[in-house]
């Protein structure tokens, strides 16, 4: 490509300082005339190549190292430290600027920007990148923990933002990203808008906008999201074409921030606390932007460097706060999920118990009564009974006994009336007598009274574990302990059965039922077993505090 401007300045025109003592710094300012103040696409206006010569000393070229990348909208200025011995007669500047006319100004100044400052800037860039990387990792873990679309977009946003930073500050991160000015400009723009698009989608998902917003706003949001993904492509296409078209495209980009802001405000006014927090997180960035606009309009004397600094600080604050808010949100959702799960388990188990109770009642009251009646009738026959009648009577007798046993097993009648400990005592005694397995019950004195539902859960867990110990473990002795622990009670069932490998065996339906019951109470349920070493089953039920059941 041909150089657009080739201009040599004599140093006499711009000299503001006497050169009796040679200056230590040369400042070159490149000014590009813009269509107006509302020019947005500053990224594209850096010259491709700048070559500077002082007399016969060649100081450039600078095109490859791009030291002017961080300069603000209107100007690209460059401070070059000088190590001059003699007087200077001529200054030679060469610039390749493919997109239109530009003006170059150069003057010598005393030491304003020292070489150390450049290093500090590189260090600052590294710091920013490191910090962003840390937040990126945190959000990545969040996503892994939650696996929700919104968090995925948030991570994508950070990835794009990081890539953007690395590309934009190419000179500082040449080790991360090859500094190639020919297309890094376009890439940085593309990445910036990609990041914004991801952030918009993150907002759409985390605020559940499609559900909350009216149809028009929804369409606008979706449209704006699409726009933001198309925009980078448009930029690539327009990169080397018309400036005015670029400006128009640049203006287009206001739509999404406005819809995003609108959505946030809408949710915040509908008392969505998450939206409110996100709005608050945006404040530092908004302040930075306002400050930037003020600087642009000449309200501040602080200068362009501090504008970039303010914006950077604002953006970092925003990112930090947003991530913290998300961590809080994840916590909240996790708590809500656990509560829901607990409620669900409670419902399922409660329903099952309800059925059991009904069936038990039916067995006891209806079938039990009928068999009773049959027995009475058979008995009333007295001596008239034949042998086969007698056998029938015996069958009816045993049927009656089994019915009663089944009914008691389905729903222990004494649990509600006499309390858990007595019911357990009864259960142990019954089990003892029936199976010959020694069951010992140990209770700490002064156990707190548990809610009726908890009593039933604990009773069922014990019932199931005793059956397991006898049927599957072949245990001969079981110790049942109901003891007080700080903030709750602990139920422990230890048997001397065959055991199983609790690392490998998942446990059957009975185990799942016990664990469901434990979850319904918000308790901690642990089963430990090794082959040949018996089984220990432990349930810690919190009664006080936040997760307390009582």
């Amino acid at each position, binding site marked *: 490509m041909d150089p657009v401007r080739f201009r040599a300045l004599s140093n006499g025109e711009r000299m503001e300082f006497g050169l009796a003592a040679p200056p230590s710094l040369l400042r070159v300012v490149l000014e590009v005339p813009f269509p107006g103040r509302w020019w947005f696409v500053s990224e594209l206006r850096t010259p491709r190549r700048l070559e500077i010569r002082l007399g016969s000393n060649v100081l450039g070229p600078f095109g490859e190292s791009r030291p002017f990348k961080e300069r603000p909208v209107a100007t690209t200025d460059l401070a070059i430290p000088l190590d001059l011995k003699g007087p200077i007669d001529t200054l030679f500047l060469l610039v390749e600027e493919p997109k239109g006319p530009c003006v170059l100004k150069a003057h010598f100044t005393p030491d304003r920007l020292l070489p150390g400052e450049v290093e500090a800037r590189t260090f600052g860039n590294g710091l920013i990148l490191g910090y962003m990387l840390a937040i990126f990792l945190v959000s990545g873990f969040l996503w892994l923990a939650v696996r929700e679309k919104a968090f995925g977009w948030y991570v994508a946003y950070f990835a794009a933002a990081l890539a953007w930073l690395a590309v934009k500050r190419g000179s500082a991160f040449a080790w991360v990203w090859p500094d190639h000015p020919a297309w890094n400009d376009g890439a940085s723009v593309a990445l910036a808008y990609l990041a914004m698009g991801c952030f918009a989608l993150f907002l759409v998902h985390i605020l559940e906008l499609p559900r909350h917003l009216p149809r028009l706003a929804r369409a606008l949001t979706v449209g704006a999201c699409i726009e933001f993904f198309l925009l980078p492509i448009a930029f690539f296409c327009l990169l080397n074409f018309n400036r005015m078209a670029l400006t128009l495209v640049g203006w287009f980009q206001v739509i999404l921030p406005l819809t995003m802001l609108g959505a946030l405000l809408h949710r915040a006014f509908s008392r969505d606390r998450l939206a409110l927090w996100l709005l608050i997180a945006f404040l530092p960035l908004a302040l930075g932007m306002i400050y930037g606009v003020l600087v642009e309009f000449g309200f501040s004397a602080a200068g362009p460097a501090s504008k970039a600094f303010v914006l950077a600080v604002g953006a970092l604050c925003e990112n930090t706060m947003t991530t913290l808010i998300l961590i809080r949100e994840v916590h909240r959702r996790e708590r809500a999920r656990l509560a829901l799960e607990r409620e669900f388990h409670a419902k399922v188990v409660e329903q099952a118990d309800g059925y059991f109770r009904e069936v038990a009642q039916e067995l*006891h*009251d*209806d079938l*039990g*009564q*009928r068999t*009773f*009646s*049959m*027995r*009475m*009738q*058979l*008995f*009333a026959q*007295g001596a008239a009974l034949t042998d086969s009648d007698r056998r029938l009577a015996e069958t009816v*007798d045993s049927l*009656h*006994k089994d019915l*009663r046993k089944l009914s008691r097993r389905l729903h222990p*009648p*004494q649990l509600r*009336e*006499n*309390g858990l*400990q*007595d019911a357990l*005592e009864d259960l142990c005694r019954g089990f003892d007598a029936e199976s010959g397995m020694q069951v010992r*019950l140990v*209770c700490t*004195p*002064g*156990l*707190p*009274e548990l809610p009726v539902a908890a009593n039933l859960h604990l009773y069922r867990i014990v019932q199931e574990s005793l059956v397991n110990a006898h049927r599957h473990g072949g245990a001969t002795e079981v110790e049942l302990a109901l003891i007080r622990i700080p903030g709750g009670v602990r139920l422990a069932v230890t048997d001397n059965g065959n055991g199983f490998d609790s690392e490998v065996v998942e446990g059957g339906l009975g185990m799942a039922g016990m664990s469901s019951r434990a979850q319904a109470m918000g308790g901690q349920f642990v089963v430990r077993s090794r082959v040949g070493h018996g089984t220990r089953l432990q349930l810690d039920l919190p*009664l006080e505090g936040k997760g307390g059941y*009582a």
Partner: protein
Amino acid sequence: MKPVEILVVDDHPLTRAGIVLVIGKEFPEVRCGEASTLGELQEMLKARAWDFVILDHNLSDGKGIEHLARHPEMPPTLILTMYEDRELSLQARCAGARGFVSKADAPHEIVGAIRTVLVSGVHFPGLEAAPEGLPLSVREQEVLKALLDGRRLVDLSKDWNVTQSTLQSYKKRLYIKYGVDNLADLVRAAVHRGVG
């Protein structure tokens, strides 16, 4: 001689029929009436005098034993129920029943119980040794020990996180099991006999 008249109260018609059948067979001199609810029982008691009532515990409009406790004027009553619960048997005795028999028992035992009560005996299987012979449950032992330590139920209910009414019912059961009706006697009996 006027025949003995027995009122059978049970909400299950088949059960009533079975009982009436057996009574008719075993006690030819007895005449039976039937009622299915407590309300019906009250009406029939008002209408005429009955010598004897066989009462189910679990009825559609209330609990038989509680009804008996509220109506001490009822004729001698035998509680006949599906439950075979010592506690319930104890309650029946306290409510003034003359006997307690479970439907799970063998028919000849049920007939035996009816016969015993008819000749104005009492029939409480398992309770023959008087309530003092009954073992205390874990909770009852705890309450008794605390009472022996001179602790008040108010403090206990706070310490154990148990309602006072629950503790009261334990105390009442202790009274029954020790055959006493006040705290001083309970303490004396417990000290005399040992706890448990």
